[in-house]
């Protein structure tokens, strides 16, 4: 096959994939396959909220959702300690610090809060968290992160030594029908699939 023919084939496949992801429920079906259904949260020694992103002190949408999810679990009395994670950069406030301030504003006592901005990857966060919590005898944790991120995050935290109770946060609806929203869902799923593949190849999972 000529280079021109190959490029036309790739182009045709790209258009077909685009149409399938945007105009059919393919991405919704992929979500159901890749993301296990949530179970009710159970009591634990600590609630651990994984980082997402902060820009100049402003939490990203997913970061805010996760932080609020952690506060709700704390207020339900499911754990006595709320650990906020999330790195910062260039001397600006870290995501963990911004989230701790938010939790305090929402009525969580400062004594029940812990900020750890050291972790930059999920694997780092699992290791740092173990350093924070294992000496306190806290091994059973309620893990808070996005639904699609949860299987990988829970596996990494279990590998670090924790007993993990999953408390996934819905950051995207799995039943979206708008083409643009379906493409956004596909993008998140593809990114997570690549991250899982990378972690497996690197031997982290």
């Amino acid at each position, binding site marked *: 096959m000529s280079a021109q023919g190959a490029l036309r084939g790739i*182009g045709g496949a790209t258009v077909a994939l685009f149409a399938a992801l945007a105009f059919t429920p393919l991405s919704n079906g992929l979500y159901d396959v890749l993301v296990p259904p949530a179970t009710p949260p159970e009591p634990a020694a600590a609630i651990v909220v994984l980082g997402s992103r902060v820009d100049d002190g402003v939490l990203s949408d997913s970061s805010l959702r996760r932080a609020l999810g952690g506060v709700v679990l704390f207020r339900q009395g499911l754990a006595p300690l709320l650990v906020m994670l999330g790195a910062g950069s260039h001397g600006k406030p870290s995501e963990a610090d911004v989230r701790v301030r938010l939790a305090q504003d929402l009525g969580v006592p400062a004594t029940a809060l812990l900020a750890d901005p050291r972790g930059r990857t999920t694997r780092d966060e699992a290791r740092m968290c173990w350093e924070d919590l294992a000496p306190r005898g806290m091994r059973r944790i309620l893990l808070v992160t996005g639904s699609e991120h949860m299987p990988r995050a829970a596996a990494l935290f279990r590998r670090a030594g924790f007993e993990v109770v999953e408390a996934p946060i819905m950051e995207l609806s799995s039943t979206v029908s708008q083409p643009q929203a379906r493409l956004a869902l596909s993008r998140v799923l593809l990114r997570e699939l690549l991250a899982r593949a990378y972690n497996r190849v690197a031997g982290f999972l």
Partner: protein
Amino acid sequence: MDTAFIVVVVGLSSLAAALVARGRSRRRLRSAVGKTLETIGLAAVFLFLNVGVGFCLALLARVVGGRFVSLYHSDDVTILAVSILQALVWQWSREAEASAGP
């Protein structure tokens, strides 16, 4: 509903374009579709390359430079737009070369 709306809108604008260009032959249309698919294929190749190179550079910075660079940088949507631009420039430069002759 959203899908149907978009299909109707695109269908109507395509119909209008077909009416405007009704004097042109079907062969030319087929050739245009082929070239468009070629450009899209080229954009996909550039996207794959850009994401792959970004991934490798991030890992290299971590391992060799000891500096953390997030793998999620390669997820930026602007990479898609730039990949399309790269494909267009490549395609147009080939066209120009072909029309200039030997």
